[in-house]
């Protein structure tokens, strides 16, 4: 229990701005700031932890409980026995933390970047802010909090909507990226202009870097619009090449994840500014079926015109993406086609589906959906 001696409303509205937080991650560092920091943070019930940034300043990543943690067992209870039994089960197992889910390595990597950012820019609020946004009822709250504690995650904000749509809350948090297991909610978010992707639990997971956040993107219908893909689907490969060549100097329209790449780029520049270009803890990849010699040029020109740098562009000219991704080992890979997402997952890559654009009419398998 946190004992608060002041009316918290007065503290928050007037004085939070004044709180200076010493650089630390999970309260490890000690120094002359310690006492003041402890006093101030006690008021917020955040002893020894850095203060969460204002949503409009941060890069906000909203994750649902089903992608952050593994909840298959609980999902089964919900599907087979209904919501009352599901909640009873959750409360009964409250002190058993969930195990990591598909978004877990990504979230851990975000925290690593935050630690480095806090070292370099102690006063800055330009950080990743991870918010748990779940359909779950608040009955699951204590188990989720226990789990976050157990894994030592820095998640201080959450919304448990008890069945209501999370979309309004995503907007209120200025969400830059929303990850969920439910394709319908992801589609809803995309329709509202929020970058979003569906994640799936795969049995095989290769190890990812502990020191560098790696994010990989497909090109068409992810970073770029699906305009070219439409041509390909309607008129075939030759027409696609012809169209791309003719329009080489015309910028592609933006896709749903462009904004997120932009947000990553802004944070990367902060590391470059302090001389950390070579060992930047954020690395981005474009993994596209376009070919370097032809259709890829339009993609690169578009990125350049947008002022976006991507660290590595891999033009596969139609070759399978799996082996390339296996080499990159991203913490997350975004693709609009389930075919590629599944292919990647088979090789142990953490892949997320962006249900956007023309490819959705040609999905090979049905997405899993429903529940929380």
């Amino acid at each position: 229990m946190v004992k608060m001696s002041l009316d918290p409303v007065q503290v928050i509205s007037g004085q939070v701005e004044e709180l200076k937080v010493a650089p630390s991650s999970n309260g490890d560092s000690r120094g002359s700031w310690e006492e003041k920091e402890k006093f101030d943070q006690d008021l917020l019930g955040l002893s020894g932890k850095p203060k969460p940034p204002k949503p409009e300043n941060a890069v906000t990543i909203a994750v649902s409980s089903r992608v952050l943690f593994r909840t298959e067992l609980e999902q089964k209870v919900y599907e087979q026995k209904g919501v009352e039994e599901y909640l009873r089960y959750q409360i009964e197992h409250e002190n058993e933390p969930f195990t990591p889910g598909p978004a877990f390595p990504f979230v851990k990597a975000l925290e690593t970047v935050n630690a480095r950012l806090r070292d370099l820019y102690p006063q800055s609020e330009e950080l990743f802010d991870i918010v748990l946004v779940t359909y779950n009822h608040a009955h699951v709250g204590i188990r989720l909090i226990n789990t976050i504690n157990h894994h030592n995650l820095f998640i201080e904000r959450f919304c448990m909507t008890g069945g209501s749509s999370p979309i309004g809350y995503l907007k209120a948090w200025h969400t830059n990226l929303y990850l969920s297991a439910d394709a319908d909610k992801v589609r809803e978010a995309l329709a509202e202009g929020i970058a979003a992707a569906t994640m799936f639990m795969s049995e095989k997971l290769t190890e990812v870097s502990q020191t560098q956040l790696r994010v990989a993107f497909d090109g068409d219908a992810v970073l770029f619009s699906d305009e070219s893909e439409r041509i390909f689907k309607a008129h075939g490969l030759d027409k696609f090449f012809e169209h791309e060549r003719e329009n080489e100097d015309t910028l592609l329209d933006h896709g749903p994840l462009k904004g997120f790449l932009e947000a990553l780029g802004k944070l990367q520049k902060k590391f470059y500014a302090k001389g950390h270009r070579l060992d930047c803890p954020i690395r981005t990849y474009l993994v596209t079926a376009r070919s370097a010699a032809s259709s890829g040029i339009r993609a690169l020109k578009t990125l350049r015109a947008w002022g976006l740098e991507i660290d590595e562009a891999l033009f596969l000219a139609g070759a399978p993406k799996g082996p390339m991704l296996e080499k990159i080992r991203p913490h997350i890979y975004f693709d609009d086609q389930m075919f590629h997402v599944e292919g990647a997952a088979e090789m142990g890559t953490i892949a997320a589906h962006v249900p956007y654009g023309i490819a959705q009419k040609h999905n090979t398998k049905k997405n899993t959906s429903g529940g929380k």
Partner: protein
Amino acid sequence: MVTVNRLENSPVKNLQSFSMVSTVQNTDVKQKDADRAVVVAVTSRAVFESGAEDSDGVHGAGIAFPLLQAFQRVNERLLEENPAESLLFDVVLITTDSQQQQQSSRIISSTRQHGLEVSRLCFSSEEDFIESLLKNNVQLFLSTDRNETSQASQKGVLSALLDETAASCPSEQLRVLFCGDAVIRPDAGPTSASKRAAQSFSAQLGEMRRRFGVLDSPLSITLMTSGGGRESCGGALRTLRSLGVSADEAYCLAGAPRGPILSLLRHHFLLSDGLGAVED
């Protein structure tokens, strides 16, 4: 038919010459069990739009109208579950406005006209309304007037401020928001009458909530913590649980601006530590 207690004949004139509270029972409505019912007092100023009357002199619906309908809905559903249920909301209308007091008969007829399940109508002066609350064993006082809620709070009556958001809330579900930062923590400072009132009301609310399932409940309880991090919210969840309250929804803001989230919650009223709605 309305019976008048203590006063005879011309109620208006007599009210003005006595500076004391008077209570009118609404015999259209079955009176609740005094021991078990949760008495909620709402000011008539909040329920009826003053000045807006139709040709028959019936007041138009004010901010608190959907709220009253929501209380009624909860009662209906409670009685559906158990026709002998005694843990019900007992809504009392309180009129402190002298102008409205002159129109006491209008208020009474408006109440009946709108079919509001109000068991009693209390008339008192601005100075005496607290007495009215205490006499009627009011457990929750709702008003659009900040001074009134503040005064009532200081005298140990759990109070909450009503604003425009209440007007756009659903009438089929009563939505109560607990602001967890300072609410009902048993060990945070001396237990004042105000805190006791909050705990007692919360416990009753929790018991009512338990009468219904997770889904399709006419009563929804939301917890929000503004300042503290997840531990603070976890603590508030546990405190609520110790009072027998299971929250349906929970929001932990950890310092993020409250406005955008509050506008999404669609709560009828907000309870903090009994001091009325906390300012943004």
